[in-house]
């Protein structure tokens, strides 16, 4: 039995359309399935900041920037430690300002949580000038496997993940002084990346409060 030309055309169109649909869903699944692995491309994301402006990871890497991602929640005593009792994040960011390093904060707190919505007020109080991206449904946090606030990641200018872990080796919520022998892992890793070296401590155990994902 022969099929009409029209039938053939419709079938072909159907096959092509299905193929295209499959390809895009595979791409979408790949996007979702991206995991944070050292030495691999960091999961790509697109999130709005507290002013509603959208940022993509590639916005920065395409300009040759090294990106530091800091998972934060101003309601967490460990975040308060680094922004108020001490100024670890601001000081580290300032240290590398001339080195094409961009510091981005991401908040994955869900909208029902009592810590939700503190960003603008605390950004003002703590004089935060880096963008704070809102990941309210937690998708990006879960792609990166962000467990704590703070949880730090460094993506180099090629979009490769180079560091995943704690900001430093002082795992408490109180401040510390110069005489305490504390390693700032992010500072160390940034120096190595900028010098074109391997990051010697590329994965450390993060510490902090839990990321308040939606239930």
């Amino acid at each position, binding site marked *: 039995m022969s099929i009409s030309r029209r039938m053939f055309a419709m079938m072909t169109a159907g096959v092509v359309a299905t193929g295209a649909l499959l390809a895009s869903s595979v791409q979408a699944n790949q996007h979702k399935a991206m995991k944070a692995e050292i030495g691999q491309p960091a999961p790509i994301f697109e999130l709005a900041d507290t002013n509603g402006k959208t940022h993509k990871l590639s916005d920065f890497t395409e300009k040759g920037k090294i990106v530091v991602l800091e998972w934060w929640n101003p309601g967490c005593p460990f975040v*308060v430690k680094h922004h108020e009792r001490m100024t670890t994040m601001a000081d580290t960011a300032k240290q590398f300002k001339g080195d094409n390093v961009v510091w981005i904060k991401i908040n994955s707190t869900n909208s029902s949580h009592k810590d939700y919505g503190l960003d603008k007020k605390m950004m003002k109080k703590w004089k935060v000038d880096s963008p704070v991206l809102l990941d309210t449904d937690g998708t990006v946090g879960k792609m990166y496997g962000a467990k704590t606030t703070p949880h730090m990641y460094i993506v180099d200018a090629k979009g490769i993940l180079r560091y995943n872990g704690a900001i430093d080796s002082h795992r408490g919520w109180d401040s510390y002084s110069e005489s305490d022998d504390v390693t700032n892992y992010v500072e160390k890793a940034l120096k190595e990346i900028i010098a074109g070296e391997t990051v010697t401590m590329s994965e450390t155990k993060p510490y902090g409060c839990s990321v308040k*994902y939606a239930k």
Partner: protein
Amino acid sequence: MATEPMKPLSTPRAHVPALGLVLFGLLAPQTLAQSKGKGLPSFQPVPAAEALDGNRLVQASLLLDHDALVPGSTALLGLRLEIEPEWHVYWRNNGDTGAPMSFRFETSHPGIEIGAPRYPAPSRYPHDISLDYIYETEVVVLFPVTVGDSVPRGTATIDAQVSWLVCKDSCLPGRASVELETVVAPRNAPSSSRTTFEAWQKRIPAQLTPSNDVRMRWNDSTLVIEAPGASAMTFFPYESDISPQPLEPVADGTAKGAVLKVRFDTSEVGEVPVSGVLEVRRGDRAAFFEILSPGR
């Protein structure tokens, strides 16, 4: 939906947030070991006006298992934390989030020495993509007290400073200074707290002996733990700077039956043994053992 005003958790000249006030109202009155104003230095410089609301959610006290300390012998000190319902503090290995407690002791005589803590086995608390090891309601951490031969008779005091992180949906740091008054005497008897000590001793992991019938072996980089007759087993790894950590603690850390298979990263095992606490349930009884993995 949060309706109380949002405030950062600690600011100089902090006002007690509304949440703290609500919880304070829920707490039953507690008899605390009174802090006796010995002018002990706090071990972190904290602005005096800073209100740590985590103080209201946990009540700390000290207990002694005997009614006196005898020179040339040991006793057991208990640091008890009573925790507000639905809140929790953390084990020595907090797991993914949170932070363990910390302590500092001072005694009235250098011959009275407080030894290393013995932590009761915790509970597993999986949430989202994380797994923590926690204590709820109450925990008593035990400390051996060794009394030197030359400690003179008379009153003696043990002072503890303890700090913790107490969490529910949010986390609050807290601290307390507590004191225990006792006597140094030639003889002693079990104190009125002995039933508390007996209960908590059951959750302190014991050293594994052949009679416990627990076997461990490596299958590549999977630690296979077998306890014939067990109805369930749970593994609690020690901190990551002491022990390799399971690759999949949520999936592998607990199982029904007599076999537990815990996967590790090949590159991590073989150098440092895996250590931690094993809970073995046989019937309605749970026993806790400190384990150290064998060589591969």
